């Protein structure tokens, strides 16, 4: 990387972007945006979806999606007047002096071309250097970005590297031309929390090294707190607040900023009132895809899942993507029959396959899908969607059903007039409410919520969570709450099940979860959640290296060894890589680890091996 030779200051005055509607009229996406940024600083654009943050960021490159028109008194980046440049001049600036890092690297990389060709493309199209020099420079960058096999990773195709690596490769693609301004558009949003922290750390250090000015677009205040010098808060295309990061985070002047901040720190809810009876018992569940031989599917996803939930209790299921969280919901609902093990409802064993369950059993377990957009039939009205479970499970029809639908809508705080609207006329939050009401219409005993707030904005999601919490308490519903958002789960649930690669590494009550004893993987997960404190990233020690070099190809799934072995910072040679991990049960906690609970409580990595 070249030294911090050039960093541009950015000045924006009176920026508006208008989109042209189908009927020819134009509508402002963002209006009257002004800010300025000294060279070498990082500005964060913060806001919810639709707030226009990406639109503003793209306007810095003279680009607008869907043929929007950019107008501004001034958009100045260094010595360039972006607002006065024509398309040809802009093409020369993009990827050369101003670079862009997109939200989803998986979509932004061309699937048909090797990574190297795409990373060095900005240098080649702007004629900055020869192919050979460009490749050498790319390899230097790969190394700086802590990518594995920097010499050869460029010859792979995008689908052959992980999401976190691809995101870093995109940073290489942006930084390779030594830009004066880097625009990062939610660069870590699509990543798992454990990956996010590492990517964030690398981004921060390479941007600091390159000395470039940066504009960081995000909806996540805690992430922004780690990287930004200045913050601009946006709502509905207008600026709410603009100031130094510390001031915005600690003493927000604007009401909306305060709402954003409080939604990001959910208050813990009181423990649930639970009855003595066990409602949902899951024991020894093994499930996966493909042909099942001896109770083991060809592609196992879940192994040995056990838990019991009392009436009115909530279980939070957390883990990285691919850990089998959604599969667990599908197994309980009967969408994916378990290969082994059983699901009991009030002590009564129910069939693994949904088709073999009675209508009454189906009614008692309801699944709320993550994405209300696709879960609701766009051809039906809200009234039809809600009347269907009423007729199917309760035989309620006609005027009675109409009254009940109105009741349900009232319950989810939507006006009864919405009954005649179709789902595609509703906002994201309204759709998710209807999706919930559909599940509540069946009057279930068990509610399975699969990432119900992850597609929603923070403030809207927080309102949905409040609603679920209130209704489940009122109706005494047992809830399984699946989420990758540990903060939410901790505030919401009585019990926490931590899944790693389909194995339950830890099952704890909320109290023990808050305590010091944690499975190493849980510790990694919890420690990776960014905090609002700007010093958090700097203070957080770099992720500890795995203690044992275990090649992942030796197949953690094929052996009963600890699944976390290859990533575990406290694994013990001679024990963890030889014997399957024992299950340790103490009051309110079940851990799957070789270490004793006393050792797991210690914050530092353990040096003394434990006796097998």
């Amino acid at each position, binding site marked *: 990387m070249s030294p911090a030779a050039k960093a541009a200051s950015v000045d924006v005055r009176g920026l508006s972007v208008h989109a042209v509607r189908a009927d020819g009229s134009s509508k402002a996406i963002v209006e009257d945006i002004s800010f300025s940024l000294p060279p070498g600083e990082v500005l964060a654009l913060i806001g919810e979806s639709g707030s226009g943050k990406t639109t503003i960021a*793209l306007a810095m*490159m003279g*680009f607008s*999606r869907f043929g929007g028109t950019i107008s501004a008194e001034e958009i100045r980046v260094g010595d360039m007047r972006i607002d006065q440049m024509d398309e040809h001049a802009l*093409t*020369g*600036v*993009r*990827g*050369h002096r101003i*670079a*862009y890092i*997109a939200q*989803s690297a998986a*979509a*932004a*990389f*061309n*699937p*048909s*071309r090797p990574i190297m060709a795409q990373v060095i*493309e*900005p240098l080649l*199209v*702007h004629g900055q250097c020869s192919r050979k020099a460009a490749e050498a420079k790319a390899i230097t960058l790969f190394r700086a970005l802590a990518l*594995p*096999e920097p010499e050869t*990773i460029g010859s*792979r*195709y995008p*689908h*052959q*590297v*992980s999401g976190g*690596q691809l995101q870093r490769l995109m940073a290489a*693609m942006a930084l390779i031309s030594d830009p004066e301004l880097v625009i990062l558009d939610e660069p870590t949003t699509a990543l798992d929390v454990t990956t996010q922290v590492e990517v964030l750390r690398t981004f921060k250090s390479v941007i600091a090294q390159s000395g470039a000015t940066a504009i960081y677009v995000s909806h996540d205040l805690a992430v922004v707190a780690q990287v930004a010098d200045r913050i601009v808060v946006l709502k509905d295309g207008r600026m709410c607040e603009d100031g130094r990061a510390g001031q915005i985070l600690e003493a927000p002047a604007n009401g909306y900023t305060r709402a954003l901040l409080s939604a990001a720190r959910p208050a813990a809810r009181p423990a649930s009132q639970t009855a003595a009876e066990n409602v949902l018992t899951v024991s020894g569940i093994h499930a996966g895809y493909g042909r099942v031989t001896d109770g083991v599917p060809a592609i196992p996803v879940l192994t040995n899942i056990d838990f019991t939930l009392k009436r009115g209790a909530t279980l939070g299921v957390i883990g990285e993507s691919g850990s089998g969280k959604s599969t667990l919901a599908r197994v309980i609902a009967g969408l994916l029959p378990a290969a082994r093990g059983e699901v009991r409802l009030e002590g009564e064993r129910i069939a693994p396959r949904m088709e073999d369950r009675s209508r009454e059993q189906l009614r008692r377990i309801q699944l709320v899908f993550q994405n209300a957009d696709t879960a609701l039939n766009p051809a039906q009205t809200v009234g039809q969607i809600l009347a269907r479970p009423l007729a199917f499970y309760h035989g309620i029809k006609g005027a009675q059903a109409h009254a009940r639908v109105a009741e349900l809508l009232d319950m989810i705080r939507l006006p009864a007039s919405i009954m005649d609207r179709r789902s595609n006329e509703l906002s994201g939050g309204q759709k998710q409410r209807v999706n919930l009401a559909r599940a509540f219409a069946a009057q279930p005993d068990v509610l399975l919520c699969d990432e119900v707030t992850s597609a929603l904005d923070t403030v809207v999601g927080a309102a949905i969570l409040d609603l679920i919490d209130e209704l489940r308490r009122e109706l005494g519903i047992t809830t399984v709450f699946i989420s990758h958002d540990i903060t939410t789960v901790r505030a919401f649930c009585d019990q926490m099940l931590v899944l790693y690669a389909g194995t339950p590494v830890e099952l704890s009550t909320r109290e023990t979860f808050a305590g010091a004893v944690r499975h190493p993987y849980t510790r990694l997960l919890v420690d990776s959640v960014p905090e609002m404190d700007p010093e958090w990233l700097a203070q957080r020690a770099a992720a500890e290296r795995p203690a044992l070099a275990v*090649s*992942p*190809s030796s197949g953690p799934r094929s052996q009963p060894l600890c699944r976390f072995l290859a990533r575990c910072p406290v694994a013990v040679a001679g024990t963890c890589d030889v014997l399957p991990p024992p299950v340790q049960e103490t009051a309110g906690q079940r851990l799957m680890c070789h270490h004793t609970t006393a050792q797991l409580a210690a914050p530092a990595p353990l040096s003394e091996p434990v006796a097998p």
Partner: protein
Amino acid sequence: MAAAVSRRSPLASLLPLIAKRAASAVLTLFLVSMVVFAISALLPGDAAQESLGQSATPEQIAALRHEMGLDRPGYVRYAEWLTDMLSGDPGQSYVANQPVADIISQRLPNTLMLASVTAVLSVFAALAIGISSAINRGSRLDRALNIVTLSLVAIPEFLVATLGVLVFSVKLLLLPSIALVSEDATWSETLRSMALPVFSLGCIVVAQMARMIRAAVADQLDRSYVEMARLKGVPFSCIITFHVMPNALGPIINAVALSLSYLMGGALIVETIFNFPGLASLMVNAVTSRDIPLLQSCAMIFCATYLVLMLVADVVAILANPRLRA
């Protein structure tokens, strides 16, 4: 995760995939041969009846049938026919009394020439129309091309051919209205006589292909990687050539193969109008004269061409997709 990515040799992982695809093509061809044989046996009347005419007595017909081997059970005749076909002998024409292979070898080069000239011209035209309307989506050019291609798909080819004859042969006196293809014709004569058939056939396949190419390219243009390439400052022509085309190749090849397979067998109307001595008109003659061996051979040629084109399209799509390739 990435460390776990295995680096197999590309060929080793591809060969089974392609072999599987080829095997299924062979199996399909075998099933098609059964269908062709069964259907040709369902035609009312047979060659014996046809060649003796209306006045023949049932005894005479029966005798000729026995002589031709038509009175044996179907599966025996099928097995015999299939072995003959496999050994490269499609049999003897009942009507012309000469080997089917000879008759076909007179016609096949004509059809191949017509098809290949049309194919080359129409693929280039379709690519140009499809890509230019995709990159100018919603513009006047796109709408104009849309109307033209839609109309050409909708207009029956005999109308295009007749109009072509009317304009170029009758009014302008530029081109012959009948395709006189013979061995001693000069190059320019052949080209001139082929012009109108190629034009009529080309119209319909160009329109089909252009619409499918437009859809494939437009779909890719909406992807995030195209926006990313623009934000990297890649000139638009390079985005089309190096980013969009590699991804659109699979669907485009499929569209092209589908349209081209039409050129072999679907040229009947054009062949008839221009009196062009091709395979399609030969096959229709074989049906009317109940010349079953000839009919079966023609049908098998059309089916085999179709299957080969589809196979090529699939293999190209596999080769173009790095997820399948590496």
